[in-house]
């Protein structure tokens, strides 16, 4: 349960300690990639709670979403339309939905536990 959180903290610490900076031109891509990754992870947690988790879907979804989002942003930059907004919108909405589902699932779990007691 705490392993993913530990991974997150470890990643943040490593990132800050190494002090890696990317050129500001690619900032947009990275922020979209972060959003896509967050979406995938939350999606994975939800799938696990609903017992429909599949490894292949999870891993492929992670990379595919990031590539798609970055590609969309890249295309948007080159044709002069802010296409990255589409990715942000899609991921944002999905993130909220997934988190809402997770919240409900956890709530039902707690209630069930209470009833069993």
């Amino acid at each position: 349960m705490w392993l993913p959180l530990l991974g997150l903290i470890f990643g943040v610490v490593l990132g800050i300690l190494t002090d890696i900076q990317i050129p500001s031109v690619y900032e947009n891509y990275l922020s979209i990639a972060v959003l896509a990754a967050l979406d995938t992870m939350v999606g994975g947690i939800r799938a696990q709670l609903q017992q429909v988790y599949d490894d292949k879907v999870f891993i492929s979804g992670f990379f595919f979403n990031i590539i798609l989002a970055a590609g969309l942003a890249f295309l948007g930059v080159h044709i002069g339309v802010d296409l990255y907004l589409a990715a942000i919108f899609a991921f944002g909405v999905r993130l909220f939905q997934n988190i809402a589902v997770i919240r409900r699932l956890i709530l039902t779990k707690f209630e069930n536990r209470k009833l069993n007691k």
Partner: protein
Amino acid sequence: MTKKMYRNITMISFIIGFMLAVQYNTVQSPAERNTVDIWEIRQQLSVEQERHSELLTAISDLSDTVSKYEDAEFNNPEILLEQTVDNLKESAGILPTRGPGLTLTIEPSQELMNFGYEIKPVSPELLIRLINDLYRSNAQAIEIDDKRLTYNTAIRDINGKTTVNSEPIEDTNIEINVITPTYEQAEKLKNHLLASSFQDEFYIDNLVLTIHEAEKNVRINSVVTVQKSNYLSEK
């Protein structure tokens, strides 16, 4: 199954954390590249040092004056005060001054006149540029066409005439006298002007700027009219 899942989620969250940290680094401190190389820093340093030594000279001059005041306190303070007043008057342009310096002349270009080109009077912009450059090269006093430049001199265009101190100067044949602190600086100024683009810039306006040899003794007259207000003065 769950073990594998945990491992995957941990890996992904690690990647997310790393990306977040990189993004944070980038947003917090945009890479400020130090593009000043050592040579520029050295040049800045030398400019500052020059200013430093100028300030030191000014301080020692002033402390000289102070010690003179203190010495003469019981003897004759009047002479010293008069000296100070004279110095101030000289730098304000009320008294004529002399010293090593340089003479520049602006004339219409003869060959262009022969071809029938119209010679326009020297423009205030060009004159101001020249004067600013002279002052930057340590000119102490400047006179344009017998009109002494003071702290409140305006060089401007009034009804199509270039004026200095609100008095029109001649359209062409203009003599500019410059006084510098030392003869060496006058020579330096001459070389600086020869190396600068001023002669070309005057030639664009069909004028020829001649830079004469540095002289040991250049005289600059005082401001002709000292404006005085008699308002509220005692009769």
